[in-house]
């Protein structure tokens, strides 16, 4: 096997991690807005908040498909086992996202049922987020695997730990959503977003603290990684960087710099993600299947890597362009296309 082929699984693990992280920070803010929906005060505020994400949510959600599709493409064994093991929360997530997604279209088509689609938007966003957090928690605990088959039960993912990760994600998404509202809105909604941003930051930090304390004790393996060389560097540096990012968010959300607040929020997610990566690498199904064991042949990974090298930069370019086209504050009259 040539040198390059040897690293294909690692390259692909990085690309999929990037896709999932991109999903989290992009769909994260629009799910966060969905969670805030009932608390936005007036009808006008709700319409304005929804209009600010209507042109981009489609593209945001596509990263979730990229995560799933990518996993099937290059780590089919892991795809099968993870989806099998987390069947219940994944189906809950998909059904919730369906409610959330159609609400964008249906809400503006009716007056009588508008309240219903408001609830669908809120409920769908909240439950999808909780389910995603529980999926993360369930995955970290490590599904039971025998050979190439998941052999656990349908509710193995339920635990205090996954409840914690579920609530942490709610706080984190609200934090991102608040920064987005600061960027996109003005007046009352904008003031509200600034206050909510501060509260959600504190909640996010609290949950990250709890999860960080719990994670090393889920598996002896995690413990060793975090407190042995070179993990100890990350154990020491990550909390410091995280505090710096949190401080940045706090300063910016209070002083009207929504873009910087959003970027600081992303930094918090990236750092948590790095921590997760350190905990489970080189496993892809924690504690049972490694990236290499789950890999397909180099021929499959190489074939689609060509596509990724060509298309991912193009995708990022036109995604950025679409955001650019809709830059600036959103009025509530807009997007009644």
């Amino acid at each position, binding site marked *: 096997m040539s040198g390059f082929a040897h690293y294909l699984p690692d390259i692909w693990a990085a690309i999929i991690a990037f896709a999932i992280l991109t999903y989290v920070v992009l769909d994260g803010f629009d799910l966060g807005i969905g969670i805030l929906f009932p608390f936005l005060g007036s009808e006008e505020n709700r319409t304005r908040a929804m209009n600010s994400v209507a042109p981009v949510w489609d593209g945001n959600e596509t990263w979730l498909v990229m995560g799933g599709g990518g996993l099937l493409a290059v780590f089919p064994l892991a795809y099968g086992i993870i989806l099998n093991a987390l069947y219940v929360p994944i189906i809950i997530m998909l059904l919730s*996202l369906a409610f959330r997604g159609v609400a964008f279209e249906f809400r503006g088509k009716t007056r009588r049922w508008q309240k219903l689609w408001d609830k669908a938007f809120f409920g769908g966003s909240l439950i999808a987020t909780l389910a995603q957090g529980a999926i993360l928690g369930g995955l970290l605990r490590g599904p039971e695997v025998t050979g190439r088959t998941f052999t656990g039960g349908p509710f193995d993912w339920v635990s205090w730990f996954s409840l914690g990760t579920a609530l942490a994600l709610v706080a984190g998404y609200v934090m991102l959503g608040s920064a987005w509202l600061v960027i996109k809105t003005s007046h009352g909604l904008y003031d509200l977003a600034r206050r909510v941003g501060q509260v959600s930051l504190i909640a996010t930090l609290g949950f990250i603290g709890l999860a960080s304390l719990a994670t090393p004790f889920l598996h002896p393996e995690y413990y060793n990684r975090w407190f042995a060389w070179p993990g100890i560097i990350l154990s020491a540096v990550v909390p410091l960087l995280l505090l710096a990012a949190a401080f940045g968010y706090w300063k910016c959300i209070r002083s009207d710099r929504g873009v910087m607040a959003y970027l600081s929020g992303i930094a918090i997610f990236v750092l948590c993600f790095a921590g997760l990566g350190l905990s489970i690498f080189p496993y892809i199904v924690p504690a049972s299947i490694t990236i290499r064991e789950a890999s397909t042949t180099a021929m499959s990974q190489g074939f689609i890597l060509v596509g990724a090298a060509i298309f991912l930069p193009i995708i990022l370019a036109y995604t950025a362009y679409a955001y650019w086209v809709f830059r600036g504050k959103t009025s509530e009259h807009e997007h009644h296309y």
Partner: protein
Amino acid sequence: MSIFDIPTLDLARAQFAFVVSAHIVFPAFSIGTASYLMVLEALRMITGKDVYLRIFEFWKHIFAVVFGMGVVSGVVMSYEFGLNFAHFSDKAGPVIGPLMGYEVMTAFFLEAGFLGIMLFGRNRVNKWIYMFAVTMVAFGTLLSAFWILSVNSWMQTPAGFAMNDVGQFIPKDWWEVIFNPSLPYRFVHMVLAAYLTTALVVAGVGAWHHIKGTADDAVRTMFRMAVAMILVTAPIQIFAGDQHGLNTLEHQPAKIAAMEGHWETSKGAGLILFGIPNPSQERTDYKIEVPYASSLILTHSLDGEVPGLGDFPPDERPPMTIVFFTFRIMVGLGFAFAAIGLWGGWLMWRKRLHEPGLFHKVALVFAPGGFLAIIMGWFTTEFGRQPYTVYGHFTTAESVSNLSHGAAWAALIGFVLVYAFLFGSGIFYLGRLMKRGPEGAEPVENTPQRAGGVAGAMLANDVTTEKEEAHA
């Protein structure tokens, strides 16, 4: 046996079949509508006629609702393989995974990325970029169909692969995998189906407004375009379907036997127009048959050999009754569409297309006919390949996940309830939009123009433009 004794395998299959059947109608309509919108926008740019803009804006609303439902059901599809068929994902993933990856990267992102501009951006970008965005959305829908049908076709007529020591299908030649023997037929058949389905819907909406006396210039124009489209596409579709049948005879003879209703392999086989398959006796009852026609159609010779299902071992037979009837419904609808096209063409030639009459009532009745035909065709091809997921190599029973019976039931019920509610509401809203007609569509001028040059607005948020506040 009570329904709670249904094996988990069948629950997993029912869920997959339900979810994919619900999904397929949305992309089919999106493919047709996206191309239609692209044509309308191009016509507007070329002719400068306002009528095309009005038709465009009307169908754009409908497209947005359909596309939204397509996205949410499509996201489900990308996880469905792993949820219910984990072993299939593991074993076939090395071959089909990269194709689905290409679908996401070349098509799904393209549609989603430019959709926002197409729906909300007419006044924010110049007309060339707008035309480009509309084109990219249309192109994305077609590319998406290409990759998904490549995956499906490979499962039906697998090629270009080898097996490794853990029993996975491993790609040997990507060209052979992607352009496997049935892909060209399946792709052409599906895209034509999408165009025909959309044309039938447009014609149906136009017919309704003719009957109600609300057919203005825009309605008349779109009605003429739709009837012309049916006239052209329906006969081509019949030809394409025939070609696809020949391909199926070559690669999936058991499926052909089930479609035709033949139990015994014979030369000079008759075409069974109607009958009732009787699997326990291995015969088809109450047959109405056209002598030699089956051989003639399938082999283009009067005494050509046509396979019978009885020649296959019982555990390799697809369920004939389902395949036999779904196939006949699809073909019957196809000929009905062709007749509608000819009828409409004749009226157009006689310059009577816009006089409300029986034709308009028929066109209204057949407005959802394309969807029915697509689902029937889908059932024919998917039930027809049973008991395999990868035809001839890997069975559905080997493919299924380790699911708990209760979770599989709950998921099936959950999908049926949620989809019925969401998509039922969606169809209701679509009906309302269609009833309103192009006149009811909001004029685009309502969308406020963004002040140019607010580059700093992203970074310095206090630059809220007065113009927008004025609109607020």
